[in-house]
């Protein structure tokens, strides 16, 4: 990193909004984008007329940002449609902060919306036809993303002795959090045995190792320090961001590592903090194995020891060693548009504002990390890590 060229403290997340719906048959996708945009701007104390930058990913319909900027009547001097699957929105926060730091814009709006549950939504572009790799990946009966994540889980178990019961601990922790979230799609706490007794979808992953499929959306508003200063509510200071695409590396596929091994250290270096400073983490949880490998790759435990790390309530808020996904995460709460990066940032901001549910609010939460994963775990994937702090962090 070039010294002096950092986003640390150059921008703030001042507005967040998560659509309360999980089944939205009567809304179309542009309407959901606009509803969550309204919600996040209202949360910030700003209006559509204040927005001068718009960021979205592949879930935005039509011509993407051009269609949605038109639909919402925005006037923008900056636009970004970075598409790295579910990690996109974590990238967007870093990109918005960079643009604000460079003086390109002052108020950036980021939106996500989709309807995979009731139809009309894009399934997500992680494995679309027409790629140069497509001829070699479309004939094997992959049914959605679960197969690719199962392949990674099987290899992790083989190399490190990770067990299904250890993976189940991650779902259990998420379910304990979700019971306090009135909007969560699955609110009932589950046990390790219940996860193990759920049907195998793609071995070794059970149904309850998989995230929910929900309609919905979310939005963020990122602003300059000058704008943040005059707003009525406290926001979250952006301290650091890192991103790292990972690919199949000319056939040297390594199924046991994600791009978090690179994005995490980049974000920490920019933030000027170490892992021990982190009070709360949002970790993308498309599947339980996603969380386990990400925790290892971010450095919270040694590679291969994730199974031990997640036992004994490590991830359970408020008093576990590393409270995670206190909204219930994608495993229980919400996974709008099949893309979980947005909700990861939303809950991290709630924690820093002290506005998580009291039962799961981490005491004195000062530093939070949000990590997004996109695409196919460990093979062709996006990774993005964000470090956030309270306003005086």
């Amino acid at each position, binding site marked *: 990193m070039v010294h002096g060229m950092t986003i640390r403290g150059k921008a703030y997340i001042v507005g967040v909004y998560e659509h309360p719906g999980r089944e939205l048959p009567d809304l179309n996708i542009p309407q959901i984008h606009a509803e969550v945009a309204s919600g996040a701007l209202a949360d910030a104390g700003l209006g559509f007329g204040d927005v001068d930058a718009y960021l979205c990913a592949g879930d935005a319909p039509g011509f993407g940002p051009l269609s949605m900027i038109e639909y919402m009547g925005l006037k923008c001097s900056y636009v970004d449609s970075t598409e790295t699957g579910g990690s996109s929105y974590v990238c967007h926060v870093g990109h918005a902060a960079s643009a604000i730091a460079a003086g390109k814009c002052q108020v950036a709006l980021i939106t996500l919306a989709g309807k995979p549950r009731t139809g009309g939504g894009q399934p997500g572009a992680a494995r679309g036809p027409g790629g*140069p*790799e*497509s*001829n*070699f*990946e*479309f*004939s*094997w*009966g*992959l*049914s*959605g993303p679960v*197969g690719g994540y*199962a*392949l*990674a889980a*099987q*290899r992790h178990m*083989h190399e490190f002795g990770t067990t299904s019961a250890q993976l189940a601990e991650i779902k259990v922790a998420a379910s304990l959090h979700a019971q306090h979230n009135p909007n969560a799609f699955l609110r009932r706490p589950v046990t390790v045995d219940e996860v193990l007794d759920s*049907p*195998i*979808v*793609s*071995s*070794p*992953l059970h149904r309850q190792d998989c995230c929910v499929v929900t309609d919905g959306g979310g939005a963020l508003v990122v602003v300059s320090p000058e704008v943040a200063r005059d707003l009525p509510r406290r926001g979250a200071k952006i301290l650091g961001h890192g991103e790292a695409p990972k690919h*199949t*590396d*000319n*056939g*040297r*596929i390594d*199924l046991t590592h994600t791009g978090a091994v690179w994005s995490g250290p980049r974000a920490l270096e920019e933030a000027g903090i170490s892992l021990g400073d982190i009070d709360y983490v949002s970790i993308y949880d498309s599947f339980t194995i996603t969380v386990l490998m990400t925790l290892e790759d971010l450095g919270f435990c040694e590679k291969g020891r994730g199974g031990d790390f997640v036992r004994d309530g490590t991830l359970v808020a408020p008093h576990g060693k590393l409270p995670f996904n206190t909204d219930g995460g994608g495993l229980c709460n919400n996974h709008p548009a099949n893309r979980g990066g947005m909700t990861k940032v939303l809950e991290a901001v709630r924690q820093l504002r002290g506005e998580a549910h009291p039962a799961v609010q981490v005491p004195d939460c000062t530093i939070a990390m949000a990590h997004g994963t996109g695409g196919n775990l460990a093979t062709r994937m996006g990774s993005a890590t964000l470090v956030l702090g309270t306003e005086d962090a």
Partner: protein
Amino acid sequence: MTTSNPTGPLPASAPHPNPDDAPFWEAAAEDRLVLPRCTSCGTFIWYPRTFCPECRKIGVDWVEASGRGVVYSFTVTHRGAGPWAEHAPYVIAYVELDEGPRVMTNIVDVDPDRVRIGDRVTAVFQPAGDTKVLRFRPGG
């Protein structure tokens, strides 16, 4: 013995050969596995293409490969979509070819419950449109 294809061969989407990979599909139609090897640096390239991601030069030779390898990872899929539904459970795997690359494929002619990482496997070609796709069966 239960096999992964009790209802006949697994479905296979017809590939769309293009200037990057046409020689692969021409050989596959004749039950031969060929791999592109960089003309400049000699590295095998996977997935097949004419641009070498190692030395970033354009140009490959198509080299006959052994068709043998080991299972690097696998998953037994219990819920297939569309034409795959009636074939579940079936095995999706990465096979590490003896030439090096790890390739996505199916393991066929096998009891899915008996597949293990490290199993030796051998190429088998199964019809897909005007050509065939590369799958593997136990042995070799």
